[in-house]
């Protein structure tokens, strides 16, 4: 069943076209990865889906309703963590709980918030303020806050981009665990510029070309889960997926030999 549908959307800042004629449907419970180079319009795409900006032309539908404004139905984890620095981790998450479970008392909300924090391994840091936390902890906090919203659609904008490889691997596992444990599964749109990450996480990968941003390829990843990081580098099927993705960008580079932005992948 389709939950999200982008119907021929275009987005421009003034004369500058960022996204062009982009159409896309995402199924319920799907883990979709959007892959693209920096400055390619990935964040812009997520902002449109979140309702923080409106497409110049075209429409976005979520659960058969047109997206017009931000809603807790479409939770987003921003590229830079955007936790509120004036609240402790627990209070940051409690804000989201207040929206998803409005009938709880203040104390119950904080308890629920603490549960979400424990789920991302931040149980001990609940009373801390963002400035007291490392980058990885803040990112987990932001994830916990968005999870606490209970939104059926999760938008993740390069959430692990700023982390060291060790923390990144841990958080990737954590995200997959949380996604797979929930019934019904949430729909996830995960943005990254890292092919390995895309292969590890996605049911499907959308390759986004830049200048202007549009879909230049789409690969369905049929490999069973959990996937091992080693397989992603060495196994035969992943090699062919990788080659297919790279082919999308190469083809594009040939098309417009002068402006080979997508080659950065």
């Amino acid at each position, binding site marked *: 069943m389709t939950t999200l549908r982008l119907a021929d959307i275009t987005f421009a800042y003034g004369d500058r076209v960022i996204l062009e004629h982009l159409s896309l449907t995402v199924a319920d419970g799907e883990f979709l990865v959007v892959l693209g180079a920096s400055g390619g319009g990935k964040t812009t795409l997520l902002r449109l889906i979140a309702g923080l900006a409106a497409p110049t032309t075209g429409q976005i539908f979520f659960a058969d309703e047109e997206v017009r*404004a931000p809603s807790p139905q479409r*939770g987003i984890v921003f590229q830079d963590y955007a936790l509120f620095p004036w609240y402790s981790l627990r209070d940051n998450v409690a804000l989201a709980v207040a929206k998803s479970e409005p009938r709880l008392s203040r104390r119950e909300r904080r308890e629920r918030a603490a549960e979400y924090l424990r789920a991302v391994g931040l149980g001990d840091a609940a009373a801390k303020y963002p400035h007291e936390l490392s980058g990885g902890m803040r990112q987990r906090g932001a994830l916990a806050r968005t999870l606490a*919203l209970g939104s059926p659609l999760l938008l993740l904008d390069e959430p692990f981009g700023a982390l060291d490889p060790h923390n990144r691997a841990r958080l990737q596992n954590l995200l997959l665990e949380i996604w797979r444990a929930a019934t019904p599964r949430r729909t996830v749109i995960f943005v990254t510029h890292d092919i390995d990450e895309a292969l590890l996480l996605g049911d499907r990968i959308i390759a986004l070309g830049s200048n202007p941003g549009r879909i230049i390829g789409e690969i369905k990843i049929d490999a069973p889960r959990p996937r091992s990081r080693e397989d992603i580098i060495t196994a035969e099927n992943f090699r062919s997926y990788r080659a297919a993705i790279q082919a999308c960008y190469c083809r594009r580079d040939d098309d417009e030999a002068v402006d080979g932005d997508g080659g950065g992948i």
Partner: protein
Amino acid sequence: MNLFITKTMRYLATAWAAVKELRRVKLWWVPMTIGIAILLELLLSNHDSQPATKYAYYRYLVFIALAFFLTLAVGAKFFPRWREKLLHISAFYTAVFLALNIYHLATQKFGLLPALFFPSPGRILEALVVDFRYLIVDCLGSSAKLLAWGYFTGAIAGFFTGIAVGFNKTAAYWVNPLTRIIGPIPPTAWIPIVLVAFPTTFSGGAFLIALAVWFPAAVMTGSGIANVPNAYFEVSSTLGASRWRQIFYVGIPAAMPSIFIGLFTGTCSSFITLMTAEMLGVKNGIGWYVNWQREMLSYANVYAGLIIIAITFYLLITLLFRLRDVVLVWQKGVIKW
């Protein structure tokens, strides 16, 4: 000649050793300084330019101080925390008592300064003690009432003006030019108008103080809110926050550091306004007392009043700093000022 140099060198070495020895006994610096002050007070006779006081207030003061710092120094042997504290404050209070001693010598003992304008510490203390009840209950009480009315009215009005300007374009359009024109006028410049326009000098004074606080509070609240990164509002809107929640959960907390800067500026200018208003129109309060005593040429009382003012304002500012530390724990270590 050679002998002379060797001798000098030896003296210098001894002096240096003594200095090093002094550094080792830092805990005893203050008692030692006070001890010297007491010796000088007891050994030297008073200069007759300074009128005599009824009691030897200066002696009381130095003896009490001696007892206090001796207790601290002895206690430091037993409590490591006391020791740490005392080591920290030692140099400062040594300087304080040294300065007091020098002033005492210059006035009471040698009469180097004109006695009319520079009363000895003993005379200032006498003025403080004799007028204490009047200073605290009548003068300070009256000033506190005026300051509190003006300060809170101004701070609250400034806060709401700032919020309106920060969040509402129409309010900004109408109010911003007003704050820019009225704001920079020193509140005390209004005194000639306010004193005739207001029914009582109290209400006029309170209005002036309110004006003094209102301007920085409004400007800093408004600019604090205007400078909140838009990302925070976006985040809160994806969390489903309504407009009101955005104001109370994002805008105001994010603007708090800036609001406190406004309050500090406002506090300082409210003190200036309070003093000026009392000296120029309001017929009571600590500022009026200082001015009145000056007219009567009793400078010991002027100093006594100034001491009360200094202590009070110091306490109020400290209180505001504490409040800020509590409200802004979330940015501890982020911003220092």
